[in-house]
């Protein structure tokens, strides 16, 4: 029978079956189907045949007929398995380079992961507030003779709520360090705590979790107080049923009872500002006798924050704000206001002449760069060892290519090898990170945890993938590029470009290492310089504490008795703190007009003997003295003040209505980044908040014990909470010291990883030149000759790196030092030392291999073949 088109079963069903059915079953199935169709066609007619054909075909649509034969289906996974197997075998065969790679890469990855954790923590500071993207601080640019000065504006935020419809909330807050620590007191407990006065909507603006109390009511009453949980625990040993209880706060000689209206969770570590309790701003206004009326005056010392409504056009808003200021306040013609996102303040807090410049973000960028470089150094080890060992795998590549492997497949193979390596290293790196995290937290002053959230896992995997990719890319392209015809003949292609690349990579590694070493030396020297620099006063044996209770009322009596304690050399008091306080770091600046120029200066109120207690040298004139009652109207100034005003023979001159009594040498109360400001001391004995005492060197412990007893008897109910000035001075350098310590570790790591790579290369070279060495020895070469031969090449490479690194590090170091007002000069020895360290470690590394190779017994290495 001939089958015409008419008798043919429907084509589309055939087509469907052909697609679906596994090829090895298809012929049989299709044949049977067609036979049945023809049978039905004869017996039952076309329609029935069609229908049955359809049901038959459908009956074949089941997995058993779909499943392809193994060989065609799993090709890709097979290849992958094969690649992994080959990688595993390579690792096993070259154990030395495997471990060098493993250690190098895992050190590099661990370091990068830690830096990643730190950076991601830094970037999230202050971003936890719910209205983060609408929460702004009011800032101002003030035009002065020395350029534009940028800072927090004192404009009361409440006025914006009143006058600008776009503003949802506005709060005025006392700045950090505005007050010394408060004392909070219950009937039987006294604790020291950090507090601030805040506007009534504070908790609507900032998202500090209120656990007890009503968010919009807790700060309404003037006698309210909101405690953090831990403060409540310290006071009452519980956080329950505290609402409505009365406690007393005291700062300096001010004290007031207040009622607990709310409890907040402790301020999270992700907040740049830390405090223990909040008081309503109204209470502060009442105490200070400030008028309740708010104006467009921008001169208050407070910080002001606003939340703008959703979809506010910020440019337009700032424009209106500035316009309003100019029309409502005629004295503000030199001031322009702008809003700054609160969460940006932490990283982008520094301004230069009105333009945002640097800030903490610089360290974030710096460390990202370091992480990248360390990864690169580790990746280069892998590259060099892989390409150096190419000759060992050349046959494998030749055969694969001859059989028909495409270049792409070979590239894939080498990349999977490097990726496997990277992920092995990740495991080791994770172990290191888990072990090192506590120390790292201590070092950086952070509380970083591993959360294992998706973002972190993805970033970790991404970092590792990136490492594997950069480490594997060059070998993959290099190795896969060989021509099978030449390499199967046994000719190892050693092109110049390859050797150059390898040398170049080692040079790159060592250049970076040398730069790191120079940086470590420079940072260390600079910090040593500022710490042992003559500050103009004695910081080592000075303690200070706040005046409280009875001391605040009878400070003169207290001081006299204090001075009588044996071991206390001198004692005095002042208003505010000495180092980095709100007063001494520019917060308390006052202006005077001198020869038509506005001059800002710091003004410190001090008691008799303060200059003597601190050991500040009087250069001209004399210090305040009890013997002359008229001294209270006179001032003592520092050298900078004299220079700034251009005074000749300053003693006795009248400045701003006050006679200059004496001139002191300059002294550093500020961070090392800032220049010494013009400063005056005035005699002020009434409102002094800090007692300062100079203690005899070597007897600190005994004297402090005595002081504690004396304090307890004299001032019962208060805590003797003293600090050494020295410690405060250290905190000025926290950022620098952290960078110093971290950079030391990073430099160490960089040089270790670089040397690992060098070690691998040296091992390899020594191995490859075994026969040459054997022959040389047979012909009479000395061991030293061979050591020289082997280390010559590497010495040259390292010397080249040093030459390259020195100018680079010079530029970087002098740029970093520019940030300090008082800095070291770059001594040539710093660079020479760095070079010698790099050269020395390289020599030791290569030398071990060279000596081993030189000790070879020629009869052993020449016997085979």
């Amino acid at each position, binding site marked *: 029978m001939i089958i015409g088109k008419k008798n043919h079963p429907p084509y589309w069903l055939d087509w469907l079956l052909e697609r679906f059915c596994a090829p090895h079953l298809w012929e049989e199935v299709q*044949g049977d189907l067609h036979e049945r169709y023809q049978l039905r066609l004869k017996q039952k007619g076309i329609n029935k045949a069609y229908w049955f054909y359809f049901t038959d075909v459908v009956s074949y649509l089941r997995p058993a007929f779909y499943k392809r034969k193994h060989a065609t289906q799993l090709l890709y996974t097979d290849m992958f398995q094969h690649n992994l197997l080959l990688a595993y075998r390579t690792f096993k065969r070259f154990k030395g380079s495997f471990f060098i790679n493993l250690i190098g890469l895992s050190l590099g990855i661990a370091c990068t992961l830690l830096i990643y954790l730190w950076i991601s923590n830094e970037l999230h500071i202050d971003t936890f507030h719910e209205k983060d993207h609408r929460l702004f601080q009011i800032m101002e640019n003030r035009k002065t003779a020395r350029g534009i000065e940028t800072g927090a504006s004192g404009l009361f935020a409440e006025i914006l709520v009143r006058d600008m419809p776009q503003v949802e909330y506005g709060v005025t807050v006392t700045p950090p360090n505005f007050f010394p620590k408060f004392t909070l007191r219950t009937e039987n407990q006294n604790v020291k705590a950090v507090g601030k006065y805040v506007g009534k909507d504070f908790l609507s603006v900032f998202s500090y979790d209120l656990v007890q109390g009503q968010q919009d009511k807790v700060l309404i009453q003037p006698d309210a107080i909101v405690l953090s949980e831990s403060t409540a625990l310290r006071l009452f040993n519980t956080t329950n049923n505290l609402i409505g209880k009365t406690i007393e706060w005291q700062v300096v000689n001010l004290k007031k009872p207040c009622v607990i209206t709310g409890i907040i969770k402790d301020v999270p570590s992700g907040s740049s500002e830390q405090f223990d309790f909040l008081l309503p701003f109204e209470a502060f206004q009442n105490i200070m006798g400030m008028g309740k009326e708010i104006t467009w005056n921008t001169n208050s010392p407070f910080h002001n924050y606003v939340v703008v409504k959703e979809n506010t056009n910020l440019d337009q808003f700032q424009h209106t704000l500035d316009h309003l200021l100019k029309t409502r306040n005629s004295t503000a013609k030199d001031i322009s206001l702008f809003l700054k996102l609160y969460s940006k303040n932490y990283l982008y807090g520094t301004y230069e002449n009105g333009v945002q410049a640097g800030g903490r973000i610089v360290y974030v960028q710096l460390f990202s760069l370091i992480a990248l470089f360390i990864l690169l150094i580790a990746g280069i080890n892998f590259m060099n060892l892989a390409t150096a060992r190419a000759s060992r795998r050349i046959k494998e590549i030749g055969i694969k290519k001859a059989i028909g492997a495409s270049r792409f497949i070979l590239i894939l193979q080498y990349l999977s090898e490097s990726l496997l390596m990277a992920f092995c290293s990740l495991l080791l790196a994770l172990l290191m990170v888990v072990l090192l995290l506590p120390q790292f937290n201590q070092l950086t002053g952070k509380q970083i945890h591993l959360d294992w959230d998706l973002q972190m896992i993805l970033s970790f995997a991404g970092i590792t993938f990136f490492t594997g990719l950069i480490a594997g890319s060059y070998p993959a392209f290099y190795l896969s590029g060989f021509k099978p015809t030449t390499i199967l003949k046994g000719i190892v292609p050693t092109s110049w470009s390859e050797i150059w690349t390898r040398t170049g990579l080692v040079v790159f590694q060592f250049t970076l290492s040398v730069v790191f070493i120079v940086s470590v030396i420079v940072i260390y020297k600079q910090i040593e310089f500022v710490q042992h620099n003559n500050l103009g006063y004695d910081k080592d044996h000075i303690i200070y504490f706040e005046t409280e209770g009875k001391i605040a009322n009878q400070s003169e009596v207290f001081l006299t008795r204090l001075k009588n304690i044996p071991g206390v050399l001198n004692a005095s008091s002042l208003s505010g703190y000495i180092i980095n306080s709100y007063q001494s770091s520019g917060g308390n600046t006052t202006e005077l007009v001198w020869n038509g120029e506005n001059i800002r200066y710091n003004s410190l109120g001090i008691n008799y003997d303060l200059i003597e207690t601190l050991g500040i040298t009087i250069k001209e004139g004399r210090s305040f003295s009890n013997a002359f009652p008229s001294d209270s109207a006179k001032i003592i100034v520092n050298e900078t003040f004299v220079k700034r005003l251009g005074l000749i023979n300053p003693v006795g001159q009248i400045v701003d209505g006050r006679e200059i009594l004496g001139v002191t040498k300059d002294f550093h109360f500020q961070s090392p980044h800032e220049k010494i400001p013009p400063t005056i001391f005035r005699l002020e004995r009434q409102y002094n908040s800090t007692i300062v005492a100079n203690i005899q060197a070597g007897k600190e412990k005994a004297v402090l014990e005595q002081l504690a007893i004396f304090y307890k008897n004299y001032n019962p109910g208060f805590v003797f909470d003293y600090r050494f000035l020295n410690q405060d001075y250290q905190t000025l350098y926290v950022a620098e010291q952290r960078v110093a310590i971290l950079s030391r570790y990073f430099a160490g790591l960089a040089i270790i990883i670089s040397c690992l790579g060098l070690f691998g290369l040296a091992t390899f070279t020594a191995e490859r030149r075994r026969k040459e060495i054997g022959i040389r020895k047979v012909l009479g070469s000395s061991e030293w000759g061979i050591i020289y031969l082997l280390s010559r090449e590497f010495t040259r490479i390292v010397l080249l790196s040093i030459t390259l690194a020195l100018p680079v590090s010079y530029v970087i170091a002098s740029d970093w030092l520019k940030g300090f007002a008082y800095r070291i000069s770059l001594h040539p020895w710093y660079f020479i030392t760095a070079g010698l360290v790099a050269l020395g470690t390289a020599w030791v590394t290569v030398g071990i291999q060279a000596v081993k190779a030189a000790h070879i017994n020629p009869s052993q290495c020449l016997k085979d073949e």
Partner: protein
Amino acid sequence: MKGTYLGEFEEVVLLAVAIRSGDAYGAAVTSEIEQQMGRSVNLGAVHSALHRLEEKGLVNSQMGGATAERGGRRKRLYSVTIAGKRALEEIHQLRNQMWESIPKTAWS
């Protein structure tokens, strides 16, 4: 090899292969079953039963001749193996044994 348990349909298919011995391919086996049982059977079901039987080692197969009705495609010819024969015998014996164990009173 998978377990040699024989399902009911598999048993029928195996019997049909035995009946058509020498010319037992998918379509023929299906027609045989349809004739014997008097109902229509899915080709796909028969085929997958044949494959299962082959996996269990109860039948084996080779490719046979092509015909015009098949569009020039070859058939796969199945034949019962010794194991298959034994399996059929066991079932047969089991059924007989059970038939004989039925007490006469059961039918009254």
